[in-house]
C-alpha cells in the first residue's frame, strides 16, 4: 500500500502529549514550518492527561540547581547520564515560566507565590502544582500550539520513519486514520515524542495507547535503545472494580502525616512497615506479599484508610484530587469510606531512545524527547521529573530540529528501500473484507505474559519462557488481516501497535536478561543484589545485521569543562 498523498514540512513531530506539543511550539517559534502528528485526539489521549500535576523546578529559596542535580543522580542509583541531568536542572524553571506564558495555571500560595510540595527524595520543596493537573497542562499547550501556526494532524498514526540513501532521516510514512489514506511526510528533521510503552503490562495506570511505537520506529532506523529494563512500577494501581481499573491511589498518602492508613493483605495484616520504605523497596515488599499468597483472589492488596486514627473527616478532606473525586462521585468507590483493591502497576518508562544533550539520537535528523527518550533519570525517578523532562528536552529538540531544517539545502528524498519497507508494514495485513477478531485476545495474552515475566520479579528462567511465548504470539500476529475500507482505521492501527509492542517486548526481555543484578526498579530473583563493580553501566540495544545487538554502555558524566554541581 503506497502513499496516496504527500506532505512536506521542515520539522515533523510525532506525538501529541506534553513532549510533542512543547517540541512543536519550540520549532514553530524558531520559524520552522512545523507539523505535529498525534495518533489520537490531542488533550484527550496519551499519557500526559493522566499526570497528577507535579513539575520539579528549583524555585524555592531553600532550593538550587545543585540540590536538584544531586537528588536526581542519587535516586537514579547511579544510572542517570549526568550531562542530561545537568540540562534538566538548568532548564526546569524557565520551562515552567514558558508554561505560564502559554496560559497554563499553577496552584498558588495565599500570598501569590507558586505552591511547592516537597516530595520523597527532594532536598527542598520542589514540585510546582498544575491547577488542573495533566489535562489542564494539555489544554494550555494545545491552545498555544494552535495559536503558533504549526499544523496539527490528529488521528494520524506513523507507520515507520523514512531514511535517505545516506541514512539520514527523510520523513515518515503514516496513516490518516480518519480517511484510511496512507500519507508520506517528507521532512529533514523528525522528533519522536511518542511517550512510553506501559500498555505492555496487564496492570498499569497508563492509557491503552502507550504502546512504545516511537521506540521501535527509532530502533529500526539504527538508533540505540537504552536501559529498557528500567520500568517504574507504581505500588497502588486500582485493579477492581472493572470501571475503576487504571486509576491509582497514592500509597504515599497512607503515611502518618497524610491519611495514616495501611496497605493490608487478605487477612487485614499491614504489609508495609512505617515509615514506608522508599518506592522500589516498598513495591518489592508488596509484590512479595502477593507472591507469598497473602494477596486477594484477584491478586491484589487492600489500600485502606478506613481505620485511620485521624477519622473520616480528615481523610476525606485530604482526598480531594481529580482522581479521588472521580472514584467517589462517579464510580461509587469512596477511598475515604472503603478499602480499595490495588496492585503494583507499570507507571513510567525510565529507559528509551538514547539521546545526547541536544536531544539528538546519532541518526542525522532524528531527535527524541522523554518519555520516549531514556537515560535522563536512571534506575528510578523522583516525582515531578516526567513532566519537567518533556518541557526541557521538548524545547531543545524543537529548536535543534528547526536549526537543522534551516541548514538543509533541499528536502531529503526517501530511498526506495525505505519506502518499500514502510509500506510493506501495512500491506502484509491487508485483505478486502477481513476483520481481525483475534486481535484483542493476542493483546491480552501479550500483556499477561509481560506482566508475569517482566514485572517486579525477573529471572533467567522466566525470561527464557517469555522468549518462546513472544515468538508464538508473533506468529499469530502475522495471520491477522484487516480491510482498509471506510473511515477511522482503528483496527489497522491496533495491529501496528501490537506489532511494535511484540518487538519491543523482545528487546526489553533481552535488556532484562543482560542486566545480572538488581537495582532500582529492575529486580532479578537470581541476582538479588546491586553490583556496582559490574553493572554501573547502561544496557544498549541496537539493530544489527543478524538481529538485535545487546551490550553495555558507559554512564556519561558532565561535559568537559563543567564542574560537578555540589
Amino acid at each position, binding site marked *: 500500500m503506497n502513499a496516496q498523498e504527500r506532505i512536506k514540512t521542515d520539522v515533523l513531530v510525532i506525538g501529541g502529549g506534553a513532549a510533542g506539543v512543547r517540541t512543536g511550539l519550540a520549532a514553530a517559534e524558531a520559524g520552522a514550518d512545523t507539523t505535529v502528528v498525534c495518533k489520537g485526539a490531542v488533550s484527550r489521549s496519551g499519557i500526559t492527561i493522566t499526570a497528577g500535576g507535579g513539575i520539579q523546578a528549583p524555585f524555592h529559596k531553600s532550593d538550587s540547581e545543585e540540590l536538584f542535580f544531586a537528588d536526581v543522580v542519587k535516586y537514579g542509583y547511579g544510572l542517570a547520564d549526568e550531562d542530561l541531568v545537568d540540562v534538566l536542572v538548568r532548564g526546569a524553571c524557565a520551562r515552567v515560566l514558558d508554561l505560564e506564558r502559554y496560559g497554563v495555571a499553577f496552584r498558588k500560595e495565599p500570598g501569590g507565590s507558586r505552591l511547592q510540595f516537597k516530595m520523597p527524595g527532594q532536598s527542598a520543596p520542589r514540585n510546582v502544582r498544575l491547577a488542573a493537573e495533566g489535562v489542564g497542562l494539555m489544554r494550555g499547550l494545545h491552545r498555544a500550539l494552535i495559536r503558533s501556526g504549526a499544523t496539527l494532524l490528529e488521528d494520524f498514526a506513523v507507520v515507520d520513519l523514512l531514511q535517505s540513501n545516506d541514512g539520514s532521516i527523510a520523513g515518515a510514512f503514516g496513516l490518516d486514520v480518519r480517511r484510511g489514506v496512507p500519507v508520506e511526510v517528507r521532512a529533514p528533521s523528525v522528533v519522536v515524542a511518542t511517550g512510553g510503552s506501559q500498555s505492555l503490562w496487564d496492570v498499569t495506570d497508563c*492509557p491503552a495507547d502507550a504502546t512504545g511505537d516511537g521506540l521501535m520506529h527509532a530502533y529500526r532506523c539504527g538508533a540505540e535503545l537504552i536501559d529498557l529494563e528500567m520500568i517504574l512500577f507504581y505500588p497502588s494501581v486500582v485493579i477492581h472494580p472493572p470501571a475503576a481499573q487504571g486509576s491509582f491511589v497514592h500509597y504515599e498518602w497512607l503515611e502518618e502525616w497524610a491519611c495514616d492508613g495501611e496497605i493490608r493483605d487478605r487477612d487485614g495484616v499491614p504489609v508495609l512497615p512505617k515509615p514506608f520504605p522508599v518506592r522500589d523497596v516498598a513495591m518489592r515488599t508488596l509484590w512479595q506479599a502477593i507472591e507469598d499468597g497473602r494477596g486477594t483472589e484477584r491478586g491484589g492488596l487492600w489500600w485502606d484508610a478506613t481505620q485511620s486514627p485521624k477519622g473520616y473527616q480528615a481523610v476525606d478532606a485530604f482526598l480531594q484530587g481529580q482522581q479521588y473525586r472521580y472514584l467517589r462521585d462517579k464510580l461509587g468507590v469512596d477511598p475515604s469510606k472503603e478499602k480499595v483493591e490495588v496492585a503494583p502497576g507499570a507507571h513510567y518508562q525510565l529507559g528509551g531512545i538514547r539521546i545526547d544533550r541536544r536531544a539528538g539520537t546519532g541518526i542525522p535528523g532524528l531527535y527524541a524527547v522523554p518519555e520516549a527518550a531514556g537515560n535522563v533519570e536512571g534506575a528510578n525517578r523522583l516525582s515531578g521529573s516526567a513532566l519537567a523532562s518533556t518541557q526541557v528536552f521538548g524545547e531543545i529538540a524543537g529548536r535543534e530540529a528547526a536549526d537543522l531544517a534551516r541548514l538543509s539545502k533541499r528536502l531529503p528524498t526517501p530511498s526506495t528501500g525505505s519506502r518499500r519497507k514502510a509500506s510493506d508494514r501495512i500491506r502484509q495485513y491487508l485483505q478486502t473484507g477481513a476483520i481481525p477478531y483475534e486481535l484483542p485476545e493476542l493483546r491480552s495474552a501479550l500483556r499477561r505474559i509481560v506482566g508475569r515475566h517482566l514485572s517486579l520479579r525477573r529471572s533467567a528462567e522466566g525470561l527464557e519462557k517469555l522468549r518462546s511465548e513472544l515468538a508464538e504470539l508473533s506468529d499469530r500476529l502475522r495471520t491477522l488481516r484487516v480491510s482498509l475500507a471506510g473511515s*477511522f482505521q482503528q483496527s489497522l492501527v491496533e495491529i501496528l501497535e501490537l506489532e511494535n509492542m511484540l518487538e519491543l517486548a523482545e528487546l526489553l526481555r533481552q535488556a532484562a536478561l543482560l542486566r545480572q543484578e538488581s537495582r532500582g526498579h529492575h529486580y532479578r530473583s537470581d541476582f538479588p543484589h546491586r553490583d556496582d563493580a559490574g553493572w554501573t553501566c547502561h544496557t544498549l540495544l541496537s539493530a544489527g545485521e543478524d538481529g538485535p545487538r545487546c551490550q553495555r554502555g558507559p554512564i556519561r558524566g558532565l561535559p568537559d569543562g563543567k564542574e560537578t554541581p555540589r
Partner: protein
Amino acid sequence: MSNRGRIIVQAYRFDPSTDSEPRFEIYEIPSAEPISVMVLMRKIHEMDPTFACRTSMCFKGACGSCLARVDGKDVLGCSTLVRPGDTVTLEPHPGFKLIRDVVVDFARPLSSQRESRE
C-alpha cells in the same frame, strides 16, 4: 429470558464514507459487574472490531475523550455506569462532527452546541 450477567446495547453505527444512512446494532456484552460506558464501548469494539470508538482516557473524568450520548443524555462515558441487566442506547456526542460510529472530531464543534470549556 433474563438479562442478568449481560448489558444490552443498541449502538449507533454510521460510516459517512460508505453508508447511506445510520442504523442501530444490538450487542450483548457479558458483565457480572457494573462497568463504565467507556469500558462498555471498548468491549463492543473488542467483540466487533468494526465498531469504532476512542479508547484512550485520563482515568479522572476530566479529558472528555469518552464524550457520548447514552439514553438521550450527553455524558462522559468514563463517569457513567451501566449495570448487568441494563439495556442502553449508545450514540455519538452531538456536539462535534461525526467521524464514524461514536467517534467524533473534537476540533470541529458544531455551531449549535459548543463544548463547554473546563
